[in-house]
């Protein structure tokens, strides 16, 4: 049973690794589909909560995958999920690293960079929509999502401020309505 879950984690994340153009947030819709709809590992709210926790920690976004592994199967799950999402893309990068001097400045590299631009953006936009659907059930949460969107899009300040304000207002709202 346990090995079955670890095997599924490994296969699921390893297959999406090579699709993670522009970073882990590009595969968030796929992660949501696999973890929530296909495998039923997590419900919508837990998925969104874990994502928020990963955002509150420093480091690359890929650690969200580690957190899903941890939540499902503890330290082993964390190790398996992290290795699975990192390994295929890292091996490719390692291979390319050896021939990178021949690539730099090549015309087709510039074309490829231009052509790749819209894809991670579109996938991240889909991620944002999925996260908002999972997170926003009250007027306050809708306002928090909209406010953070504007804060991040139009200021250069650390997004951790917006996450902190979100947590603070969420807590205050609870205390005021409960009390």
């Amino acid at each position: 049973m346990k090995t079955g879950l670890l095997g599924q984690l490994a296969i699921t994340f390893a297959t999406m690794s090579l699709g993670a153009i522009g970073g882990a947030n590009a595969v968030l819709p796929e992660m949501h589909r696999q973890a929530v709809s296909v495998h039923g590992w997590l419900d919508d709210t837990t998925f969104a909560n874990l994502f928020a926790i990963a955002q509150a920690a420093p480091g690359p976004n890929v650690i969200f995958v580690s957190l899903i592994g941890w939540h499902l199967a503890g330290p082993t799950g964390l190790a398996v999920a992290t290795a699975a999402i990192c390994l295929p893309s890292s091996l490719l990068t390692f291979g390319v690293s050896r021939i990178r001097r021949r690539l730099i400045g090549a015309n087709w590299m510039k074309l490829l960079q231009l052509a790749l631009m819209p894809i991670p953006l579109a996938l991240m936009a889909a991620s944002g929509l999925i996260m908002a659907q999972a997170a926003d059930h009250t007027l306050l949460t809708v306002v928090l999502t909209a406010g953070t969107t504007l804060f991040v899009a139009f200021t250069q300040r650390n997004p951790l401020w917006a996450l902190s304000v979100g947590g603070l207002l969420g807590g205050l709202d609870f205390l005021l309505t409960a009390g």
Partner: protein
Amino acid sequence: MAQGDQAASEKPVSYSSIFLAFSKIGLCGFGGVAAWAHRVLVDERGWYTDKQYADLLSVGSVLPGPNVCNISIMVGDQFRGALGSLTALGGLLAGPLLILIVLATLYETYGGLPLVQAVIGGVTAAAAGLVIGTVIKLARRLRASFGNILVGLLAFAAAAILHLHVLLIVAVMVPLSLALTIRERRR
């Protein structure tokens, strides 16, 4: 370029300094690891010039996987080969993963309390905004062509509405986008 790269690789760089440099990048990188990667690798360590770093980033960004992870693998490999890559990637992930484990343990212990749930609910709503806001910020910097917009809309629909596998989306969209970009360039 080749000359600069040579100079960079001639310097003896130890495993521990690779590990420490990338630990710093990982731990300081709240919501923007890339900016810290530049600061540490170029300004503090002096391992690369601005131009060399830009080249590194350009290769890292066309490959799948987080850009900073890709950079760590290339930098580690350049100084110390495969073990260097592992050291750099390990340094980048170790610190953040430890903090993550602490946060996850707190979440699993206290996550059931109504007040904690309300706080996390607020953070989660803000995190959704963080994703959407980042998309808007990046999109504003682009001068998108017709082809870019078409590819963006198709990829968005494929992921958000049709729920297709990300590998399928990438496998179809990359050649399509490349073809459109080449066509637009020719005009």
